[in-house]
């Protein structure tokens, strides 16, 4: 076996999914947004703070049309991540505001609640 087994749920860190909205005049591609978010996190929280926050930025949940996406972080770091996102001012030369629109415990619930996505598994 190449990889360790999954940890049991009681041993895993509790996580939260932050649904965010990018407010800007033009469209913002994911690659640039992701770079700016990481830059802001490391600048504001430092490398250790960012490591503690256990941040993941999901490419496949980012809707470039609506400019909505999801970030996963530790449940203890929600406020720090929110604060770091508030520090983002521009992406390239485009002024932006990255705003957290809501928080959820699971990715599925976040997508349903904040992006209005329909859960097809319930049909």
């Amino acid at each position, binding site marked *: 076996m190449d990889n360790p087994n999954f940890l049991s749920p009681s041993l895993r860190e509790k996580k939260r999914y932050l649904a965010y909205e990018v407010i800007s005049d033009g469209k913002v591609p994911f690659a640039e947004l992701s770079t700016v978010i990481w830059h802001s996190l490391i600048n504001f929280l430092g490398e250790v703070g960012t490591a503690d926050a256990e941040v993941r930025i999901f490419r496949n949940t980012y809707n470039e049309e609506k400019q909505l996406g999801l970030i996963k972080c530790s449940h203890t770091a929600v406020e720090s991540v929110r*604060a770091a996102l*508030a520090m983002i001012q521009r992406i390239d030369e485009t002024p932006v505001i990255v705003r*957290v629109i809501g928080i959820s415990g699971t990715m599925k619930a976040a997508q349903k609640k904040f992006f209005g996505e329909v859960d097809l598994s319930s049909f």
Partner: protein
Amino acid sequence: MKFYDLHVHSDFSIGTSSVSAIAKMAKRLGLAGIAVADLFIDEPRLGKLREATEAAAKEHGIDVHTGVELQPKDPEELKRMLDAVRGVADVVIVAGGDYKVNRAACEDARVDILAHPEFGRKDNGLDEQCFAAAIKNNVAIEINFRHVLFSYKRSRAHVLEHIATNIRLANEKGAKLIVCSGANSTWEMRDARQMIAVTNVLGMDLSKAFLSSSEIPLSIIARNRKVLDGTEIGKGIELV
């Protein structure tokens, strides 16, 4: 919970966005109200700003108040400025930084908010006497988000340190803190919840951080509205 941002500049003074654009962005960011606090030039200009804020409030369906930001050089100038604006503005903000001005603002009950007392300083700009006077005169100490946003690396570290000191002292003494964006354009405005998160990271209790963005600004507006309407004719005396 309703959130307010009482310190935004428009193109009436140093800002770059119109009052209408500010109100539109405020609504998008989920704010219940804002105060457009431009630098005081003269009364006719303030009258024009009031017309613009009233029009923006009707257009976008949020509370838009008319404020002024005073930038006095010394305490004497502050007194003269307060004599001119107190009866005509919804919110009176004094730009801090100079210790004498910080202290004079805390000691004058006509001041609503002392903005960024740590601005341009190598310390937090306030001492025990200032906090005691601010409590006595009901002056709120501002945590200015723009000051954090437009500082980088080492200077941001110093700004955050000074703000954290003011938060700690205000919590210990029981002084009022208020969180404002201090924005000069719509792109510098932030969702109140994000500014609350920043203050929380700097050491303010989350419940107090919520108050500093909702109840405290609301109480300032309610108090001043009574005075401007003529229902409050003296300290603690109301016409019923």
